[in-house]
C-alpha cells in the first residue's frame, strides 16, 4: 500500500468521525427558542407594599391608613406614597403590614417578620413632625419589634417619618436597639401632617 493509499484510508476513517461530530451538533441544535422564563410569582421575596394602619386610642372606630406601594417592584413605575394625616394631641395605635403582591395569593411578609421577631426590628426616624413613636410589641427576648407602635402626636406640624426595617440575625440588641446593625430590608419615607 502506498503512502497515499494509507492516507486515503485514514482520511475516509476520519471523515466518518467528522460527520459524527457534525451530527452531534446538529441534533443538539434543534432548539431555536430560549426557555420561557418563570413567571414573576416565582421570584424570591419582593416587598411591594408597606401599609400603616392608625387607630385612635380614644375612638376605636376612627381608623386611617397610609401605604407605600410599588406594584412592579424596583424600577419601572415609581412607587406611590400616601401622606399620613393625624390629629394633634392624640395617641394612635399603629400596625405595619408588609406585603408581597407579586405572589398569588398575596404573601404577608409581616407574618414572617413576626415569626422571626428576634432577627428584626423596625426603626422610625422623623424630621419636623411633632410625633413621638414608641414600641408596643416585643420579641421573645423582650426586645422591641415595631410591627405595633404607639404614635403620640403633639401640636400642628408637617414633616417626614421614615419606616426602616433592619434584618439583624444575631446582632439585635436590647431597647432601644441599634439602627446601624444588620442590613436594611425596608426603608420608606412618608410625609406626615398633624393638624386639628
Amino acid at each position, binding site marked *: 500500500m502506498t503512502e497515499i493509499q494509507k492516507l486515503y484510508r485514514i482520511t475516509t476513517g476520519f471523515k466518518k468521525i467528522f460527520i459524527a461530530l457534525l451530527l452531534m451538533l446538529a441534533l443538539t441544535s434543534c*432548539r431555536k427558542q430560549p426557555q420561557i422564563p418563570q413567571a414573576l410569582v416565582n421570584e424570591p421575596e419582593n416587598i411591594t407594599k408597606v401599609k400603616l394602619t392608625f387607630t385612635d386610642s380614644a375612638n376605636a372606630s376612627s381608623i386611617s391608613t397610609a401605604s407605600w406601594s410599588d406594584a412592579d417592584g424596583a424600577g419601572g413605575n415609581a412607587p406611590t406614597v400616601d401622606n399620613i394625616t393625624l390629629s394633634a394631641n392624640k395617641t394612635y395605635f399603629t400596625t405595619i403590614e408588609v406585603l408581597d403582591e407579586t405572589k398569588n395569593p398575596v404573601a404577608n411578609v409581616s407574618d414572617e417578620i413576626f415569626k422571626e421577631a428576634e432577627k428584626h426590628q423596625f426603626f422610625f426616624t422623623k424630621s419636623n413632625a411633632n410625633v413621638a413613636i414608641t414600641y408596643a410589641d416585643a420579641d421573645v427576648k423582650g426586645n422591641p419589634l415595631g410591627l405595633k407602635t404607639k404614635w403620640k402626636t403633639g401640636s400642628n406640624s408637617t414633616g417626614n417619618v421614615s419606616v426602616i426595617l433592619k434584618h439583624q440575625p444575631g446582632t439585635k440588641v436590647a431597647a432601644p436597639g441599634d439602627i446601624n446593625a444588620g442590613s436594611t430590608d425596608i426603608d420608606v419615607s412618608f410625609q406626615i401632617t398633624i393638624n386639628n
Partner: protein
Amino acid sequence: MKYRLLQLLIFVVFISAKAQTNCNNAFVGKVLDSETSKALEAIITIEGIANAAITSSNGSFKIDNLCAGTHNYIVSLLGYETQKSVVAIPQADKLVIKLKPSIQNLSTFTKVEHKREEMEALGKVTLKEIELTKAQGASIAEGLKSIAGVSTLSTGNNVIKPVIHGMHSNRILVLNNGIRQEGQNWGSEHAPEIDPYIATNLSVIKGANAVRYGSDAIAGVILVEPKKLSEINDLGGEVNLAGFSNGLGGATSTIIEYCNKKVTALKVRLQGTLRELGNANTPNYLLNNTGAKEKNYTAAVGWIKENYGVDYFTSNFNSEIGLFTGSHVGNLTDLENAFANSTPRSEYIGKFTYNIDRPKQVINHNLHKVNAYFYTVYAGKFSLVYANQNNTRSEYDAHRPRNAYEPVKNNPELKFSLNTQTLDFIWEHNPAKGFSGSIGVNGMMQNNSYTGRNLIPNFIMQSGGLFAIEHYVKGKFELELGARYDKRWMRVIKRNKNNTLSQPTFNYNVPSATIGVVYNYQKIIIKSYVGTAFRAPAINELFINGVHHGNATFETGDENLKAEKAYNASVNFIYNSNSFLNAELELYSNYIRDYIYLQPTKPAVLTVLGAFPTFSFKQTNARLSGLDATISLKFLKNLQYTIKASVLYARNLSSNSWIELMPPNRLDNGLKFNLPKNVVLETNAVYTMRQTRTNTNVDYAAAPNAYTLFSCNFSKTFNIKKTKIAAVVGCNNIFNTVYRDYMNSFRYYADDLGRNIHIKIKLTF
C-alpha cells in the same frame, strides 16, 4: 535536557562498550545540506548499537568507542531524507554526509509538522514556571499579574478576574484547553471557572491581535493550556501540595498520566484538585465568611498517531465561595455606614471557621471536548473540535427569604444556567517558503436560563465566524496578517414588569482584522501591531435591570446598544543582551468607538429599600493608552534586578473625563538571587499608586492611598531517584501592611489581606 539525556545515554553505552576489545575507534564526520552545503545539526545513530551523536553547529560529529568492523549508520534530520549507509571502522578519512531536503516523504514530513510549534500569535507572553506556581492554589488571575500590563479586578479575596490594559470580563477571551470559556463572564463578581493546576502553560496575548480565537477579545486573550497528550510516553505524574497561613488552608492536586509502551498511540491523563481555605485575615482583623472550597477534576484520553489523532477531554470545576458578611448592604445608607467605619462592625469580624454561610456563590462548570485531526501530505493539518460546556452559577443572598416554604428555603436567590456548544474546523496549511497560516470556521450556540430574581433574561444565541491568518518570515522580518468575520443572532425572552413576555431578536456583524510586523536586529526586536476588533454588547449591557447589591446601585441596560469597535495599535521594543541588560517597552493605544460603560444617571430609583443611585449602560468614544515597561539588570552572575512599570490613561473622549475603575500605576521591583545548590531567592516590592485619574463625585469613597507590598519566595529543585521535587516557601505581604485595593470592590467594607506564608511542593515522577 535532551542533550543531557543523550550524554547520559552515550555515557552508559561507553561503560558497556568498555568491556569489549579493540573498541577504541572513533567515527568522525560532517553533515551538510546537499543543495546549499550548509552545516546541519543531524542525529547519527549506529545500527545494532545503542549509540548516537548529534552534530555540533558546524555540522561535525564524533562517536567514540566503536569496535573495528563495518557499521550501519543512519543520519536523520527533520525535514531531510533519512540516509542509511555503511562505514568501515577504523575510518580512513573523515566522512562527509550530504542530506537531501525532503518534500515528498510522508513520514519525514509529518515529523516536521509535529515538531513545528503551533503558529502562535505575535505578542504572546507565557508565564515562567516559577510564576505559574504563584497561581497554583490561588487563582489564574493572581498568576497572570506578574505580566506587565495585566492586573486584577476583585470582589473580596476569592473572586479575582484578570484585567488586561484596563479591560476585563467580556472584553477578554479565556481559552481553557483551546475552548472559549463561557460562564457568566459579564459580571465583575464572576471569576473564570478554571483550576490553575491544569495549566502547564499560562499565557496572555495583549491587544486586539488574536483573531484566531474569536470576536470580542478587544483587550486580549488568556490561554490556559494543559500538557499536550502527545507528550505522554510512559507512566508518570505529578503531586502538588500547597499550604497557606492566611485562611489556614491548602490545596492538593494530582496528575496521573499513562501510555503503554506496546500501544503508544493511547494516552491517558487524570487530574484532580481539592482546595479549602477558612476565613481570611487582614492585618488587624479576621473577615467572617471569606472561606472557599474547590473540587475539580479533568480527564483526557487520546489516540495519537503520527498522522492523525482523536482525543477527548473533560473537566469539572466546583467551587463554593464565601463573601464577606459585612459586604452585604441592603441599601445606600448601609453602604454609607460601612464607609464611615474604618473597621467593619464587630459582628462581621473575628470568627475563624471553614464553614461557608450566606452570602455565597456556588459554581459548577463542566466541559466535554472532542478533538480530531489529521495531516495530509499536500494540504497540511485539518482539525475539528467540538465542545459542550455547562456553567451553573448559584448566588445566595445574605438572608434566607422569609416567606419561602421549607423545601425552597435554601435555594439560591439567583441561579444561572448557561449551555454553550462550539464547533471549530481549522485548516493549517503546510509551511512553505516562509509562509505558514490557517483558515478556520467557528460555530457557537448558547442557551441561558435563570431561576430566582429577575436580573438578566433568558436567551439563545447562535454565532458563526470565519477567520484566516497568514504568517510570513523572511530573514529579519516577520509579518502576520489576520482577519475574521463573525455573525451573531440572539433571541431573548424576557418577563416584563407586568408579567407579560417579550421576545426581541438581535443581529450583530462583527469584523476583526490585525497586522503585525516584527523586526529582529541582533539583540533588538521591534514588534508592532495594528488591529481592529468588534465586540457585540453582552446580555447585561442590553438587559440588566435591577439592584446591584454589592455596590448599592440600580443598573439599567439599553436594548439599543451597538457593537463596540476597537482600533488598537501597539509597539514593543525588546532588547536582549542576556548578559547584563534585558529590557522591554510596550506602548499601546486603544481607541474604542461606542465604548460601553456605566454612567451615573438621574433620578435615583426609589425602592422599598430606599433610593438607589442609578447607573445606565451608555456608549461613548474612549481611548485607553499607556505603557508597560520591564527592565532586567544582571548586576552579578547570580543577582538579577527587575523593574516593571505599568501606566494607563483611560479617557472618555465624548465627555472629556476619566473612565472609572481603571488600574492605578504600578511599579514592581524584584531581586532574584541564584544561590548555590539550585536555591533561588526572589524578593519583590510592589508599589501601587493612588488612582488619581477619577472623576469627582462619582465614587462613594475616595480611591485608597498608595501602598507597597513586599513578598519573598525561596525555591529549590532537586531529585530523589527519578522524582523531581520543586519546593517553594514564601510570604506575601511580609510586613502585614494595611491597605485597600482600588480594584477590589470590597475596599468599601474592609482592609485587604494581611501576611500570608505559603509552602508549595511539587513532585514530578
